[in-house]
């Protein structure tokens, strides 16, 4: 059975492009755009890998990650964070909160694919 990736991102064209790349690579991709309900969505249907944008409407990716790491079922979930801000402090914050990987936009398709395969064992 194809492994599941959940992409939490609010830019529709980025969602479309990433979904296409991953689907073509054999992943089952689900998407979600609202920060406020994102943690609930993850807990309800935990994926094999979560791709989480930092700047989301309603709630930041950092807050969502903190929430997930505190929950038993999602404490060890592989999480790749995406951000438009490559500042060291954002990277440090992500890693401190327990992100598995941190990726700065704009990224290449090959790069994101390689990390998804690596993190979710594709």
């Amino acid at each position: 059975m194809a492994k599941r990736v959940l992409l939490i991102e609010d830019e529709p064209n980025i969602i479309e492009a990433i979904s296409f790349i991953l689907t073509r690579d054999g992943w089952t991709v689900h998407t979600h755009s609202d920060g406020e309900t994102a943690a609930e969505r993850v807990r309800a249907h935990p994926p094999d890998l979560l791709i989480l944008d930092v700047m989301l409407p309603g709630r930041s990716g950092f807050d969502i990650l903190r929430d997930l790491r505190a929950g038993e079922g999602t404490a060890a979930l592989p999480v790749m964070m995406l951000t438009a801000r490559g500042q060291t402090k954002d990277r440090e914050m992500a890693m401190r909160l327990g992100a598995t990987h941190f990726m700065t936009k704009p990224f290449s398709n090959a790069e994101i694919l390689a990390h998804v395969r690596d993190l979710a064992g594709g």
Partner: protein
Amino acid sequence: MARRALTGSRIRQRRLDLGRSQAELARATGISGSYLNLIEHNRRSIGGALLNSLARELGIDPALLAEGAGSEMADALRAAARTLPEAGAEEERAEDLTGRFPGWARLMAAQAGRIETLEEQLAALTDRLTHDPALAASLHEVISAVTAIRSTASILASGEALDADWQGRFHRNIFEDAQRLAAESRTLATYLEGPGEAALRTPFDELEAALEQVDQHLPLLEAGGTPEEAVAAMPGLSRATRPLALAWARRYAADAAALPLARFGPQALEAAHEPGALIAETGAPAQVVLRRLACLPPADGHPAFGLAICDAAGALTRLRPLPGFSLPRSGACPLWPLYQALGQPGRPLAARVSLPGERAPPLLVHAAAAPAAPAGFGAPPPLTSVMLVRPAAADGPQPAPVGPACRICPRERCPARREPSLMTSTP
């Protein structure tokens, strides 16, 4: 005396560097070996023809051997060495360096000065990027559009067969994102290169610039004018800045009513602008005295003071910098008495402080925190802190260390450090 002593040492060092014996140099300059020995061990002062003769023999500018020559440059090099102690520069040999390689020494000193300037610019830019929501939002929009275009274009350019439906969708997405990028780029360019520097100013900056134009002094309010009239008289304030200006003018008017200029001006001169003496003499609250001192007219012989005011969260609401003193809008060093006072409301603090760097002048600061308005029952008082800053005398007790923001502060072992510095090699 110390400078004279170095002249002999410099002669000796230069001679040794050239591999010449004391006897041979003495002969060449027409003096005895024992006299040269006394000179080299700083037991005889030297100048005039003999200094010129020795300098000629040693192939060095006499000014660099002479008493005090190059000391300013050597001081600059020592200061540069202390900003990066892990480099292990031999501070005690700074004078040798200026004597032997004056060009390199000038380059190093100039580069150290340039680094200091760039650090200040970095602080200003960091502050701007952190606190300008319009700029941050615009950059985010640009990066998001670029990410979408890059990703989509890569799919189209991969050469793999795509069905017509997907192909059409991706072309449309690229077109939309390109339009979005073009529009956002124009917005960003207009924002950054708009009508002069004013386009880059936040309301906070605009108010500071307007108050700086009048040396912080508002004669209209001193003469009993209303805050509204005072703000109307400040030219070119934007709509966003006017409420800030009005709040400051109200505070100013209340302070001026409590300590009228006609009386407080002479009192301040008499007390050499010492806040403690003025608080005792006038009986006014510390914050009122500090703010009043910052707004006295220079034309009456009052000095310029630096001023910083922050709220209970440490966010600055006023900042008048001085040479050697500035603070970022937030994320500043918590060691400044401005922030320390917040933990001790009602207790004025005085301290002698200095920023990192040998050339940073010591500063004398007075700070006091107090409720900005009466607190309601059960509600915490909304505190503000006021800090007055002026240059301190060069001689005096060791100043307490303070910094700019952690990211640009080289004090690695500071107990107040929140995050690693960009200025050190610590990962």
